[in-house]
């Protein structure tokens, strides 16, 4: 009797080793998002040392952010086909190598490559697989788990910013980059924590099914029927791999996902310039350096509070159905805050702004993986997250320079902030209209079926099908099975 290599679980554990995964993801968020934000602290040093102006130095941050998001699908691909542990450890080694190389930089272009591309690529290999892993281990407490895991970026920025400043004062930027490279090596520790888990609803992992020698024949048939890759299980050839990979990205054609993708584009365009331009804007209206730094700290701390409280709130049974609406509400509120920002011209007025913006920023960041999971299902979550973060890349790259160009030409921050505000509000209203359109369509269909008495099939989640009216009888099951096998 051959011993089973992996044990299939029927539902996510919602605890146990899952909490270690949350800790691991928390550390991954600190080492990736917080370190990327702290790179801007080095800019003054780079400007002085390399005798370059702010615009050329700011490209390092844009390139790093863009590379992290652009290569996110690569990260999901590697973790799906090799293993999450290998993917994250590889990413950690790459990012650490990038930072260590940067400490020996002799020119700004050298930094574009090592600190921008290499480190960004390393972070990309870690970020989305870690988040997808949390989604696999949790179901009922998903949003809370995500909240805790993603609060790493806020807590990390809050702790790392003064630490990096201290390192620069003690060791100059070269030594600080070397030590930061060592700190980022801890991503390998996080990678080691990500023990793989396979769930029964994971139809997209045929190799696991082959190892299930103790699964009965009847069960195997059922699973084969509903598995989209079923005709290819026997021929586990190279063609099968490519075809399966295309099937993995099936969700790209879902209208729900396409709407989410477009809204993410606009949302990412709107949210990035604030972290770059809040401090210069505050200084331009007469706030002192310490008070401006305090505004950034408030943003960071309230970000964490928003992460965890919104995560806990949307896990409550009453709000679970309305997670989508909570997400678009948070994005809309951030857009509204932006529109008010040009009117706030003093420190006592900017503090409540930081509170509100920080809270809703933390809120929607927590809900991105949750909303994506609701749209595409847990099976394709890793790949879908890769695509969603990939869509963040281009806006992150172009938005701060465009905002900077607007500031230079109009000589005030009003135009750029209003543009970002409208971008975020558009993203929110797009989701709102999509949801309304879906509801109208559903009520229309329902009235149609009541009139004509035909059984309709409505697909949700891409992997499981529900029938709208009547009970599911044997004939319907066969219809569904053949549709799935197509």
């Amino acid at each position, binding site marked *: *009797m051959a*011993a*089973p290599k992996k044990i299939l679980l029927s539902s996510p554990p919602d605890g146990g080793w899952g909490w270690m995964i949350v800790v691991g993801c928390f550390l991954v968020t600190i080492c990736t998002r917080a370190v990327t934000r702290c790179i801007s602290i080095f800019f003054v040093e780079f400007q*002085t*040392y390399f005798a370059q102006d702010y615009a050329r130095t700011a490209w390092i941050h844009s390139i790093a952010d863009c590379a992290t998001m652009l290569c996110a699908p690569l990260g999901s691909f590697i973790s799906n086909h090799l293993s999450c542990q290998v993917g994250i450890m590889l990413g950690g080694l790459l990012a650490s190598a990038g930072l260590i190389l940067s400490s020996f930089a002799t020119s700004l272009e050298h930094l574009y490559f090592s600190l921008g591309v290499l480190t960004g690529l390393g972070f990309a290999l870690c970020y989305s697989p870690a988040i997808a892993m949390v989604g696999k281990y949790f179901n009922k407490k998903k949003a809370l788990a995500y909240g805790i895991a993603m609060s790493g970026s806020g807590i990390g920025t809050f702790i790392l910013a003064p630490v990096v400043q201290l390192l620069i004062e003690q060791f100059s930027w070269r*030594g600080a980059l070397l030590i930061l490279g060592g700190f980022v090596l*801890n991503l390998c520790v996080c990678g080691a924590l990500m023990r793989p888990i396979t769930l029964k609803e994971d139809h997209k992992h045929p190799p696991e099914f082959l190892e299930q020698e103790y699964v*009965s024949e009847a069960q195997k048939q059922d699973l084969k029927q509903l598995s989209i890759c079923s005709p290819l299980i026997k021929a586990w050839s190279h063609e099968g791999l490519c075809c399966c990979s295309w099937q993995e990205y099936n969700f790209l054609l879902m209208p729900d996902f396409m709407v989410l993708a477009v809204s993410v584009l606009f949302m990412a365009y709107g949210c990035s310039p604030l972290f770059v331009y809040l401090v210069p804007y505050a200084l331009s209206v007469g706030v002192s350096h310490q008070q401006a730094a305090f505004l950034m700290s408030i943003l960071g701390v309230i970000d964490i509070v928003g992460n965890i409280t919104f995560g806990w709130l949307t896990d409550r049974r009453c709000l679970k159905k309305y997670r989508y609406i909570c997400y678009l509400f948070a994005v809309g509120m951030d857009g509204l805050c932006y529109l008010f920002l040009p009117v706030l011209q003093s420190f006592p007025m900017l503090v409540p702004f930081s509170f509100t913006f920080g809270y809703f920023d933390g809120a929607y960041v927590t809900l991105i993986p949750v909303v994506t999971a609701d749209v595409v299902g847990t099976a394709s979550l890793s790949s879908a997250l890769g695509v969603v973060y990939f869509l963040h890349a281009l806006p992150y790259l172009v938005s701060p320079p465009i905002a900077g160009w607007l500031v230079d030409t109009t000589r005030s921050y009003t135009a750029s902030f209003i543009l970002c505000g409208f971008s975020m509000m558009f993203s929110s209203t797009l989701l709102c209209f999509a949801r309304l359109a879906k509801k109208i369509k559903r009520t229309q269909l329902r009235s149609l079926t009541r009139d004509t008495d035909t059984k309709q099939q409505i697909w949700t989640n891409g992997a499981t099908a529900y029938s709208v009216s009547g009970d599911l009888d044997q004939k319907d099951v066969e219809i569904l099975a053949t549709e799935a096998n197509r």
Partner: protein
Amino acid sequence: MLFQPVENVYLQSEPFWLWFSSAPVEENVILYSPANIALSCNLTSPSTDSATVNVTWKKDNETLRSSSVTFNETKHVWSTQYINQMGNYTCVFKRDQEVKATFHLQVPQIEGKEHHVVSYVGDSVVLVCKSIKYIPISWIWYMSNGSDQVAVNDSLMPDKYTVDEKYANITKLKILKISEEDDRSYWCQAVFKLGESKGKVSLKVLTYMTPLKPFLAIAAEVIILVAIIFLYEMYSKKKQMHAGTLQGEGSNVLKQNALIMAP
């Protein structure tokens, strides 16, 4: 207080409001270029008696002039002194008590850097001095040699020192091929029409071993943690497999029986 360089016009300072019980008042007046300035002191008294008050103006403890003034109807005593030189000017009002106010006239101060600038052996470093509001005529750099200050000659040693003066209010001293001897203090002196002021920047030179030690400590910690986590994973997998084998055997027996029994 800043006075714009306008000639033949007497610029009025903000008057100091004093009364006999107040503590001595002091103010820094920054003078950028030669100007004629009127310094005013105003004494207020609550009592209605029309007493005479002695007003004395001093420059650096030398008396410039002295006079007696009586309180007018509005119970104020004004006194104005016209000057055009740097120094510390004091107006003193005396009746039974004495009260005074001091104006410190000085050139703009240059701020250096509080913390030392850190750099490494063989690397290069840029020391920066800024004068934000006022533009000096020129800058001179000095370095400390024991207890003296020696001028930094960038034309004599061009491959060691370079002074960059792209903007008139910022000066940058670039030191190349740093060695342990460059671990000292540097002064940037800004020359204004009315005088000079200095700012201090100190340089600290480290070797590459200094940041390497914390890095190696963190790398060792990472390796140890990864090893512990993988060992724990192998151990718990063995435990699971052991428990799973027992369970698996049991369930297989059950299923075999079920297949036999099914038609």
